[in-house]
């Protein structure tokens, strides 16, 4: 068994357990909501149109967006309940994923439920009335059993959709089989990506087959098939949930967050490792969106993570001035503490700034050393960026400072952005200064003579509720000021490179060893 495969397998009980817990509860909730709505819609055409139209509309929202939209919605609701009742609820993770997937599951259940019920032979419905059944008896004894096979086909479709879509719960902070896919994509670990896809596909297939057994059982009035299908489904869910229940029985530990790129995974692993060495239990929450990570920390959903001063300064605090590095750090820490109660433990010692980079050969040919030089050539060049750069303040600052205007701008998942510049599809990219691939791919970072981009010191942030947690601080304090940019680039490259690829976990160990921790 290869090492990456073995590593993937070790994560399976946790990822699969959550994936099943999420999908099963979304389907169950969807079914509970859809069944009465389908009955109402079948009885009354005035209800049917709006119900099916809304369900159809929800289906047209891209699933990732639907999941993401529940986060601000729940955040707002949580603030309201906190103000009104004194209790909030987590806006990240299970709840938004559950709600989005539930909505997502409802269209096929509703459509098939309505089709099944309206498809019942009117003669049979009339007979049910004629023999003296009440409306409720007619529904339960005649119409529901007759509609069941068609309705069940809808449940099958919903199950396959939900299990597939649940992989997108990862970016909103819910562990799922999507964790394999997102982190694999990020670190170019295709074994991990394939493993995640295959696991989700097998789960969907098995569920579909068991539901199919129930469906044919209902259609052929074969109670044995229905029973076997139900028992197998129930046993499967139970088996998948057991590792979670065992895990939940352990004392709750710290939750370390990470955004969605290699450096974040590595640093999260380093922090987790430090805490574990101190005897604490730690869970990781990877692949959080850039802004979501801070919100999650402020809401105490995660206990600590690494962010960058420039990002916090511009995106979280909404500042557009760029004071000197030390001043910015100090003012940022004060503002975060005052506004959110978030503690800035300190800078790690390296910067991971947004930088514009291009191939050395092209830069030499055009005679470009700085962004100011680039501005003259930009109209003939194509910019490749990650998914958030173009909507960030830093980009606007660069544009206004240097009058940058590219021929075209294209967005990529960071992994593919490096591929794109390597293949010459783009000429300039929005790189990160600590990225190991800058040196590895022979790219040059263009200087920023006007200082348009703020400094991006990596800092450890601690959640408000852990502000007085001495154990946490003691475990993480040794990291402050210890990691220089060379060490970080090396660690990043070991995860991102194509040959002799390391897992973030292994890179974290190597980094710790290099630091003498």
């Amino acid at each position, binding site marked *: 068994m290869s090492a990456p495969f073995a590593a993937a397998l070790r994560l399976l009980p946790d990822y699969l357990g959550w994936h099943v817990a999420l999908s099963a509860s979304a389907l169950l909730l969807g079914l509970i909501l859809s069944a009465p709505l389908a009955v109402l819609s079948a009885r009354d055409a005035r209800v049917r149109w709006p119900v099916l139209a809304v369900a159809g509309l929800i289906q047209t929202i891209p699933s990732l967006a639907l999941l993401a939209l529940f986060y601000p919605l729940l955040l707002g609701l949580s603030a309201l309940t906190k103000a009104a009742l004194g209790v909030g609820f987590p806006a990240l993770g299970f709840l938004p994923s559950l709600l989005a997937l539930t909505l997502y599951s409802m269209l096929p259940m509703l459509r098939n439920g309505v089709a099944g019920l309206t498809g019942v032979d009117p003669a*049979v*419905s*009339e*007979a049910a009335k004629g023999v*003296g059944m*009440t409306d409720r008896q007619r529904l339960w004894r005649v119409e529901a*059993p007759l509609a069941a096979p068609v309705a069940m086909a809808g449940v099958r479709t919903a199950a396959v959709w939900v299990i597939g879509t649940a992989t997108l719960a990862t970016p909103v902070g819910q562990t799922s089989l999507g964790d394999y896919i997102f982190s694999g994509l990020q670190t170019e670990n295709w074994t991990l990506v394939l493993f995640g896809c295959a696991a989700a596909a097998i789960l969907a297939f098995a569920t579909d087959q068991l539901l199919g057994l129930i469906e044919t059982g209902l259609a052929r009035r074969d109670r044995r098939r229905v029973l076997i299908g139900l028992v197998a489904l129930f046993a499967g869910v139970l088996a998948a949930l057991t590792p979670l229940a065992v895990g939940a029985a352990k004392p709750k530990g710290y939750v370390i967050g990470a955004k969605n790129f290699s450096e974040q995974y590595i640093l999260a692993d380093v922090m987790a490792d430090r805490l574990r060495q101190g005897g604490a239990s730690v869970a990781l929450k990877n692949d959080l969106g850039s802004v979501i990570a801070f919100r999650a920390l402020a809401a105490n959903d995660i206990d600590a993570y690494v962010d960058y001063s420039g990002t916090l300064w511009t995106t979280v605090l909404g500042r557009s001035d760029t004071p000197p590095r030390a001043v910015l750090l100090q003012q940022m820490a004060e503002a975060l503490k005052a506004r959110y109660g978030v503690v800035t433990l300190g800078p790690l010692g390296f910067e991971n700034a947004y930088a514009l980079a291009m191939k050395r050969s092209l830069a030499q040919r055009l005679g470009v050393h700085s962004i100011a030089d680039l501005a003259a050539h930009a109209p003939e060049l194509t910019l490749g960026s990650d998914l958030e750069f173009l909507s960030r303040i830093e980009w606007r600052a660069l544009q206004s400072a240097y009058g940058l205007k590219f021929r075209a701008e294209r967005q990529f998942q960071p992994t593919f952005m490096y591929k794109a510049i390597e293949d010459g599809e783009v000429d300039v990219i929005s790189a990160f200064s600590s990225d190991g691939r800058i040196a590895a791919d022979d790219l040059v970072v263009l200087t920023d003579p006007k200082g348009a981009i703020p400094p991006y010191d990596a800092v450890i942030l601690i959640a408000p509720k852990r502000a007085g947690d001495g154990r946490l601080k003691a475990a993480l304090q040794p990291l402050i000021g210890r990691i220089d940019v060379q060490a970080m680039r090396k660690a990043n490259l070991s995860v991102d490179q194509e040959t002799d690829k390391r897992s973030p976990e292994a890179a974290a160990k190597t980094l710790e060893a290099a630091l003498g921790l």
Partner: protein
Amino acid sequence: MIALKGVAKAYDGVLALDHVDLKVERGEFRVVVGASGSGKTTLLKTINRLIDPDAGVVEIDGRPVLEGPAPLLRRRIGYVFQGVGLFPHLSVGENIAVTPKLLGWAPAKTAAQVEEMLDLVDLPRDFAARRPDAFSGGQRQRVGLARALAARPEVVLMDEPFGALDAVTRDVLGRAYRDLHDKLGLTSVMITHDMMEALLLADRIAVMRKGRIVGEGEPADFLKGGMDAYVQALVETPRRQAAAVAALSETAARPRERGA
């Protein structure tokens, strides 16, 4: 037994039942004849409240049918219709047992009743375990009859019960039901568009046209003539057909006589 007093029902402003009065005596086999759209089905359904009238009263044994909940009323009345409407997810036995179960009969009593009903409609007892979709139209309607009679109703309503069957089966089932009607002392109201069927089965016939009863009497009264022109025309067809068939059989018989 059954009385309709000034019963009216309109659909989209058009009167399907135009203040109809009708009396059916206990034990009577009443057939209501009419073309489609004459209001005959609407009339029948006001009796077991599948349709509630806009005006007028329907009474059974002197009590308005609107008095109690409709499902309780329907459990006391047998109902057979052209669509048959056997429940495809239930066995023949379960179909027949449906109303007794709704009435809360003991399982043993219900099971015995199912066998008795199968005997009554001349179907083998081992049909009880089978699904209805395997049977012919005539057999299915026999099951439909068994289901309607299972809870021992005094009143049976039939809406073109044999309309979808071939002529032979129709005749056989019609006569079989007439026998059951007499044997069980039922009060039956049957709807048909076929005057011949009415003449052969009914104790009394009512003819409906445009929501009204335009002729009423015993079959013999209809053959005597002197009724409304529309009714006369309805009777004319079976009479002419009968005469033609009689003439044919006579010519068919003659050469044989000669040859003998």
